[in-house]
């Protein structure tokens, strides 16, 4: 009886310890991808099966855990559009319309494989719990489950490189486990200020057969913004942050 109790006690102690390690690892991966508050320049490229492509350049500002704003710099048809995320609240500002309109995280502002939450991504550790963790040969595999229904992908499988502790591949799935898209992280680059991370993210999706999307990161740096930048009033003025 005593032995059984000791074994049970060890199991109860071991499970939280493993969970904490996996959560800690996810937090580390998040920090290696981005500082908590930063500015970022990136290009989104949608590539059609016949090779035609459409490009968007975005400026992004993030603060703390739940404040993200993004501004379209090009093409001319989208220039000046901005999106704002404040926790689970999201808005889209279109210059011609002249006012911010509430949108959902699943809606797409650029068309194609990307949706709003890809553009206004928060830390994985803030949006997901680690359900399962596997220690592979050169990689870690984390099985993530969304904390709330407000997240675009209910389940995420994340493969991370053991050396750099940055993602190598991410599979985004529905609650039923259906694959929505796969992200491949490539070309590790030193952006300065201690930020060393993949600079190219390739995406494909079984829902858009033959289509491919690529994100290229041109620059990312730590920057602190005031809270008022992440408000509806400021959305038309996003350009002044650059």
């Amino acid at each position, binding site marked *: 009886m005593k032995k059984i109790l000791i074994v049970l006690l060890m199991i109860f102690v071991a499970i939280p310890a493993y969970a904490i390690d996996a959560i800690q690892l996810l937090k580390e991966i998040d920090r290696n991808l981005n500082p908590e508050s930063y500015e970022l*320049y990136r*290009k989104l*490229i*949608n590539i*059609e099966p016949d*090779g*035609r*492509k*459409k490009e968007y*350049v975005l*400026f992004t500002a993030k603060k703390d855990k739940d404040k993200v704003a993004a501004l379209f*710099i*090009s*093409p*001319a*048809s989208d*220039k000046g559009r901005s999106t704002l995320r*404040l*926790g*689970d*609240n*999201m808005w889209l500002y279109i*210059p*011609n*319309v*002249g*006012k911010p*309109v*509430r*949108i*959902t*995280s*699943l*809606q*797409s502002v650029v*068309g*194609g494989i990307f949706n709003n939450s890809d553009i206004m991504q928060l830390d994985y550790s803030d949006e997901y719990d680690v359900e399962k963790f596997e220690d592979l040969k050169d990689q870690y595999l984390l099985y993530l489950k969304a904390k709330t*229904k*407000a997240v675009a992908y209910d389940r995420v499988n994340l493969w991370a490189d053991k050396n750099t502790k940055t993602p190598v591949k991410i599979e985004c799935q529905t609650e039923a486990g259906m694959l929505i898209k796969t992200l491949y992280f490539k070309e590790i680059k030193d952006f300065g200020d201690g930020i060393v991370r993949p600079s*190219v993210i390739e995406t494909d999706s079984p*829902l*858009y*057969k033959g*289509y491919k999307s*690529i994100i*290229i990161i*041109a620059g990312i740096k730590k920057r602190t913004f*005031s*809270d*008022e*930048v*992440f*408000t*509806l*009033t*400021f959305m038309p*003025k996003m*350009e*002044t942050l*650059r």
Partner: protein
Amino acid sequence: MGKAPNLWFKRFFCMWLPCLMLILIYYSLFAIHLSFCEEYKFDVSEIEKKPYHIGGYLEFYPILFGLDKTSALYKLNFYDRDKESTTEQYNGTLQLEASLEKGISKLYVKTYTNYLNSYQYETTKFKIFEGNLSVKPSSSWIFETGKKTMSWGKGYAWNPAAFLDRTKDPNDPELSREGFILASMDFTKSFAGGNLKTFSFTPVVIPAYSGVNDDFGEVGHLNFASKFYFLFHDTDIDFMLLTGGSRTTRYGIDLSKNILTNLEVHGECSLINGYKKTKVDSSGNTSQSTYNAFNYLVGLRYLSQKDTTFILEYYHNGTGYTPNEMRDYFSFIEKAYEIYNATGNPGMLNKATNFAQNIYGRANPGKNYLYLRILQKDPFDILYVTPAITMLANSDDKSFSLMPEIVYTGITNFEFRLRGGPIVGKSGSEYGEKQNDYRIDFRIRYYF
């Protein structure tokens, strides 16, 4: 505008604009072809910020109207013309935007140049839609002065609380509109933790004098407006007020919230004190009544799992006309038309035209309306194609317009939109008495 510039615009918009569009499309397709062989690259020049910016769009927009020869508004507009079954309208538009930024200050100008050729007119309009100076000493304080569009309210098709804006066209609610000359300030404060996340206060001064905002309302007054915004319990809430003398005092509230991750609900209401309503009976006699008009709108935006967006709105227009009042007006036109046919005297028809232009001709003059728009993003996995259908109905007389459309944005900086549909209603109803039975339009826009 003089005759020579008008001729120049006519030549540009009728002859050169379609040719220019074709050249630009060819060039864009050629650029796409070249880009097949390119590596993915991201030059620093692409993100370099310049202190100035010039952009905008060029638009070619022909429309075909199928005329309803039995309708009251056809008789009013075509009584002295050949009886045609269709009529065309050609629009060419150039919208230019320019800005200059220095330190905390920014100068911004948006101009609108439109050439219109229809059965009634051939005109060229040039307007400064916006032209203002903004000063932003910090992210909490923004001061602006000049011509500006405020765009208050949460409704998509209508905004009963947009006291400082020109009326939206529910057939094209995303079109930019001309602003008014005003001075405003924005003060914003964010709060960490708690249910109140953001508070903003926007006081506005709007003069209405001869030559300055003389179409805003009664001239000779300095008007004051303000908006208080709260992000409270993840709900956007605005309180709005306008007073001063050019228009009667009015109060407004709007709110918007995501109640599910794919369902947003919004509402907007306004109370207009002492609204003066002019109406005409079937004999052409006018009468005026004064009352406090209450307007409201409730709406939702829903996104289905298959990426279909539904926008549904119900609008009660407290300043609008009941079906009986609308019928009286249409009866007056019919009588005026009969008199014209019998005597050749257009006097009564001219009087009816005057009512159409100033009172009954505004967008949605009725009391209660329903708006439904359904959009399907990337149907059958075809990127950049968005089919949609829009219904705009007068829910009192059950008349409506139905407008299916398809938008293609696959060529960088181009937007193509084809739409067309019937305008349906019984005799005496708002849409039944419209001049047209159907319309088909095609719009090409090139952004630069």
